[in-house]
């Protein structure tokens, strides 16, 4: 009996000791992981701070005004451009029905999207039927900025050549029909925020650098270096 209990207690001690160590090492490993993640977080936070500061630095109103002058030539909004609300803009008069246009028949459409006001691709040169409401037209106006393909008009024509019912090419075509080739030329990748940000890195748009060099240190690094020199 006493031998049995001896064995029992011994096993218990060994087992509890073993499990204690197991748990301890497991916890240590988790703590190591946690510390690694924390260190990583701290480093990332620092990096975010630096990047935010750099982004802000590159977004100085003065610099943006300079870039605008150089690349865009946008003028401040005139008061008369603000006179009216969206509701005040009259609706465009309804276009003539498609039957009135004898030259081009309606292009067959394989699968009209539900809810799309006009499923048929409109004849070239005429305003798209889908753009008959102001809401639709404003949508297509805003798209050149967001559609990545819209910067290259050639690829657009290639895309719209086959009559397709998918929504995207229609919108792109509507964008291509905007009589503003200049706008398309003025939205190269060089002017996207990502490109502006990269002025600090190696691949730099030469013109932007030139613009920056007029009155500012080229980057936040240069600014900090300047501060360091001052002290």
């Amino acid at each position, binding site marked *: 009996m006493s031998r049995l209990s001896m064995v029992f207690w011994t096993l218990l001690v060994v087992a509890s000791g073993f499990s*204690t*160590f197991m748990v*301890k090492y497991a916890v*240590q490993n988790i*703590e*190591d992981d946690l*510390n690694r993640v*924390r*260190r990583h977080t*701290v480093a990332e936070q*620092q990096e975010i*701070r*630096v990047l*935010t*500061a*750099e982004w*802000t*630095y590159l*977004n*100085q*109103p*003065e610099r943006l*005004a300079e870039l605008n002058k150089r690349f865009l030539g946008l003028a*401040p*909004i005139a*008061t008369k451009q*603000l*006179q009216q609300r969206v509701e005040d803009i009259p609706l465009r008069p309804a276009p003539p029905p498609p039957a009135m246009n004898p030259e081009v028949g309606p292009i067959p459409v394989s699968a009209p999207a539900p809810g799309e006001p006009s499923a048929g691709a409109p004849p070239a040169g005429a305003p798209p039927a889908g753009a008959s409401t102001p809401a639709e037209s404003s949508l297509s106006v805003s798209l050149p900025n967001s559609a990545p393909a819209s910067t290259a008009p050639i690829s657009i024509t290639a895309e719209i050549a086959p009559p397709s019912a998918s929504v995207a090419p229609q919108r792109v075509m509507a964008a291509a029909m905007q009589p503003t080739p200049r706008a398309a030329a003025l939205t190269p990748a060089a002017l996207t925020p990502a490109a502006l940000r990269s002025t*600090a890195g190696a691949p730099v748009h030469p013109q932007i650098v030139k613009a920056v060099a007029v009155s500012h240190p080229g980057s*936040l*690094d240069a*600014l*900090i*270096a*300047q*501060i*360091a020199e*001052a*002290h």
Partner: protein
Amino acid sequence: MSVAQPFEENPCRPRHFPPLPACAPVVPNERAAAALETCRARLVAAAAMFAVAFLVVALRLVDVVAFADESADPLRPGRAHVVALPPPTRADIIDRNGRMLATTLDSPSLYADPRQIIDVNEAVHAIRTVLPNLDPAELHAKLSSSKSFAWIKRRLTPRQQYDINRLGIPGLNFEHEVRRVYPFGDLASHVVGFCGIDNNGLAGIERALDTTVKTSKEPIQLSLDARVQFILHQELTKVISDFSAKGAAGIIMDVRTGEIIAMVSLPDFDPNHPGRSDGPQTAAAAADAKDRVFNKITLGDYELGSVFKTFNTAMALDDGTATMTKQYDAAHNIKIGRFTITDYHGKHRALSVPEIYMYSSNIGSARMALEAGADRQRSFLAKLGLLKPVPIAFDEVAKPHFPNPWREVNVITIAYGHGIAVTPLHAITAVSAILNGGILRPPTLRKLSPDEVPAGNRVISQKTSEQMRKLMRLVVEYGTARQAAAPGYVVGGKTGTAEKNVGGHYIEKKLLSDFVGAFPMNDPRYAILTLVDEPHGNKESHGYATAGWTVVPATGRIIERIAPLLGVRPVDESSPAITNALAIASMQGKRIEDY
């Protein structure tokens, strides 16, 4: 030894063997028994000591393995429980749209342990690829010294640190230091302020909210709008260059809440290196640097001139000593003591209150003030907060200067803004109160939540406030501030041109031209004050340096540019709703004379 001895007789027989069964029990003698007892007791004692020792070791082992706090152990720094977060630094300062005005960046310093450097020449060469400005001979001397510590370069940029790390030279280490950085440079230098080398706030918000900035985990959001600030900054810079002025200042305030949307004082400085002026370090340069740090809006006491007629008229209308139709004699100059009060745009006839305000008649204003009396004037200005420093969480605020005792001659001059010097911040706060329906609220630089309206004191009635809006609109429509009329934004305001008092004398050629206005006047949202210090007339202004030709056109441009940003919609100024709201009955059908 071939003869086998009987076991019992063998002297080498182990004693503890039990006796053979055939033997008689061994009866030890008494001595032997005592010796055995002693031996056993000693054995027990020794065993107990060892047991205790092992127990202690075992307990200590359990303690070390299971319970010890490892982070407290200096010998094991590698496995801290918690990674220490960066030391407490200053919180970011952001504008009302979240743009960063001030931030704290890690700015590591590079040092070396020369004893760990393996190849000095190679290290020097590698370091100089990253830091080409270092002197190679000096660097070589530092790295080959026998000491264990040598600074190589303080305050690296993040990129330099990265590049140095990439070199992978053993023995190079970084000491972490922090540095305050102002990405927008001089844009809001006077508001944000700057920090010293030890990162204590020395000016502006950095100083006023130093403890908050040091303890806050969240960024501190100011009421400032960086875009509006930029426009104000740009236009005032243009005013300075156009009129070769000494300085300029401007402030824009939300009249409903007292939030300061923009505050510019020119010339200004770059908070990234305050106190540094261009050119050689001379006494003049030092004075210039000091001049740049001076915040004209909160520290500059100025005699603002005719802008004070706003307060004078509001006082007379609110106290009932004057009405909108009441007329005052402006034909005859007032002589008091050795002074003669004259009009700049004299009309030489009796003028009604709106006419006095519109034509900026000194004589009429003086008569209104004399009618009200010194006590009324003094208590009204005190009510508007013009006789004590502005209550704002900002360290650099100046006390106003006003006469004591308050004599009759002071009553007269104060009526048109001379003999009392207040800061532009005073003036715009009081004008905001006059225009917002009559509630004076303390100005603030902290952004308020959208529905938060701070408590305020009523200083004039709603009716007087509405009358003052009409009067200020009149000045822009027909008076001295016509060039401030940004079309569509129903601007109203009052100009002031004061001769500067230098050493007790007013100097005719040294002017301070200012304008205080608001828009849209039918329901004022934003008040704006602009002033220019010692402007000189140019060709476009036909040689004039008065407010109407200097700051007023600039203010018109500013309003036109900032109103869309501030969400103020342009309206049709000739629409009946606007004209009826701002029409003055007594001026209807009257021919308004030109200047």
